[in-house]
């Protein structure tokens, strides 16, 4: 069997080593010296018994790996926050007074631009962070870790779930940072701490469809640059042609039309609804639930549907990429 003591060339001595806590291994270690039959069977039997992780175990292993990689590489963590923070600071400082008018006047009943903008920045963070999900996958494919994981007995679904959940955790943390920063800049979070958690949840739900998209791109292109370029190319039009930076009714009609079909609108409206504790959605006129729920219910429903559709595509692509069928 494999070396249980590196410097020991005699299998017999290895087999009787008192430090060897694994009785099966001791038998297997003698496999070659002893007559093949029983010992060899013990060898394969032992290997199987040794490697029985639960689904949750497999999930946890991968969740840990990707969290560790995120911590090891704070650059990614910081960079995906820098752009949203720049947006937050510049937009509030440069457009704050102007935009305030569109929102009902700084002295009027409308919210401050800081309050209006922070939920949009939270969604921007989700988008930026979701892009890195595909990049992580491409990296793994390029350097062989993807194959190394596939050749291990770990369950594929648990592997991808673990990775995705690590990314979702990171997104939640980053949104938390943005919210704190926003409040420091003068934004008003009407619903307090539960609202903050709610916005994080919206951000996570929102990010899933883009994570699915970036992973699909990763599997399709198997190339880091392409994945980054395509994902980044999508980010800005999606953000600007939505309710993110200004109320839709002050924007040209064609943008309003586009925004109706833009997932970002639903993510931003849901987050903003929580931020202001009010029905802020203008693209869909829902009145059945009352108050903020008239925004949250349709917003979350749209996001959920989108997550399911794109998620299914990503699962299909990942399953194909990780299957052993010859292509």
């Amino acid at each position, binding site marked *: 069997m*494999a070396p249980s003591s*590196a410097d020991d060339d005699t299998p017999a001595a290895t087999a009787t080593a008192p430090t060897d806590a694994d009785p099966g291994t001791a038998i297997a270690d003698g496999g070659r010296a002893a007559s093949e039959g029983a010992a060899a069977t013990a060898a394969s039997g032992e290997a199987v018994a040794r490697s029985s992780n639960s689904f949750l175990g497999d999930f946890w292993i991968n969740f840990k790996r990707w969290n560790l990689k995120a911590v090891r590489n704070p650059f990614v963590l910081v960079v995906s926050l820098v752009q949203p923070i720049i947006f937050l600071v510049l937009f509030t400082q440069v457009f704050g007074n102007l935009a305030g008018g569109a929102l009902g006047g700084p002295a009027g009943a409308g919210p401050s631009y800081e309050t209006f903008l922070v939920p949009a920045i939270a969604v921007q963070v989700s988008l930026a962070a979701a892009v890195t999900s595909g990049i992580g996958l491409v990296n793994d494919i390029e350097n062989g870790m993807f194959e190394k994981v596939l050749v291990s007995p770990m369950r594929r679904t648990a592997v991808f779930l673990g990775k995705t959940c690590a990314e979702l955790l990171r997104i939640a943390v980053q949104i938390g940072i943005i919210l704190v920063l926003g409040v420091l800049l003068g934004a008003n979070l009407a619903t307090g701490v539960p609202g903050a958690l709610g916005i994080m949840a919206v951000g996570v739900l929102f990010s899933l469809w883009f994570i699915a998209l970036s992973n699909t791109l990763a599997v399709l292109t198997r190339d880091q640059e392409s994945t980054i370029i395509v994902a980044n190319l999508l980010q800005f039009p999606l953000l600007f042609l939505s309710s993110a930076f200004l109320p839709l009714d002050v924007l040209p009609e064609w943008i309003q039309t586009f925004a109706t079909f833009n997932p970002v609108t639903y993510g931003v409206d849901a987050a903003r609804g929580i931020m202001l504790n009010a029905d802020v959605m203008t693209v869909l006129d829902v009145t059945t639930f009352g108050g903020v729920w008239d925004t949250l219910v349709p917003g979350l429903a749209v996001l959920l549907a989108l997550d399911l559709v794109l998620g299914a595509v990503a699962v299909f692509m990942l399953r194909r990429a990780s299957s052993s069928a010859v292509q």
Partner: protein
Amino acid sequence: MSPAAIDARDVEVTYSDGTEAVRGIDLEVPDGEFFGFLGPNGAGKTTMIKTMATLLKPTGGSVTVNGFDVVSAARKVRESIGYMAQETTVDEELTARENLRFACESYGVPKADRADRIKELLDLVDLADVADKRADDFSGGMKKRLDAATALVHRPPLVFLDEPTTGLDPKARNRLWDYFGRINDQGTTIFLTTQYLEEADQLCDRISVILDGEIVETGSPAELKREVGGEILDVEIGGDAALAEGDAARAEGDDGPGARERAVEVAREAGLFDDASIQITDDGISVTTPNAQTQGTDLLVALRDAGVTVTGFNVHAPTLDDVFLAITGEELEHADVEAPEQAALAGGED
């Protein structure tokens, strides 16, 4: 009766573009053997090893690894093998210890054993002193050793090594050979692919020569080398003048032999070799013999006694080219390292 470590029956792997990478391979590797696949780039070595390691499904035939079918019991196979890909694979953002920990966890090494197992493997591959350094600071050889260690965490009874020493300097390569030898001594079956006869010779109990997706010959390194007829002994005869003199003499209708012909005559008369194994080369003669070292000395003495001037003398082991030439009758095509499978596959038809 225990199942063979590998039992492959008429395995075929055909890619969707029609490339027949593996074309009917039968293979049986008993438990504990150090077995090698020797062949050029594109011969189908990697495709076959990936098929046995469950990364590819065979399009024909069947493979049983450690008693489990690679298609219907893929997970059982994965639990019972270690696999080291051709490209060095480590997570460079993690330390050596973290890489090994991830591998331990992936293969379900019990928590209580993990620390000991990791320490043991770090010692085995001489990385204990850099255990907590990130792998992206490692040299190629160090990464390769770490990669090898991660394939061993669960004490697999069978380990697949796909060209494990390609791209390594001789020192790093020798170290890896040493590790593989030790693991095999302790009972692990090893399946290795290589392009280097020297590597197969050094490590393997048995070798299959693979060409164009088929096994063309199987045997021990000694048996394969016998196909070539042993080592090759090159003797450089005379100076340019001596050769010119001989050639000139022949041109003039003189029946007296040239220096090289004379040398061949001497070699034949010495009765040391088969006549067929003696050949005239550009600057002397070349003899293929299973016993070049001792017979070479005898030959040199005989040549000196006969008054033939020997200016150079060289013994070399048969190269992969020699073995290929002997076994397949065709020259080994030297494809680039990056060459796609198809390049060499286009080579032969049978």
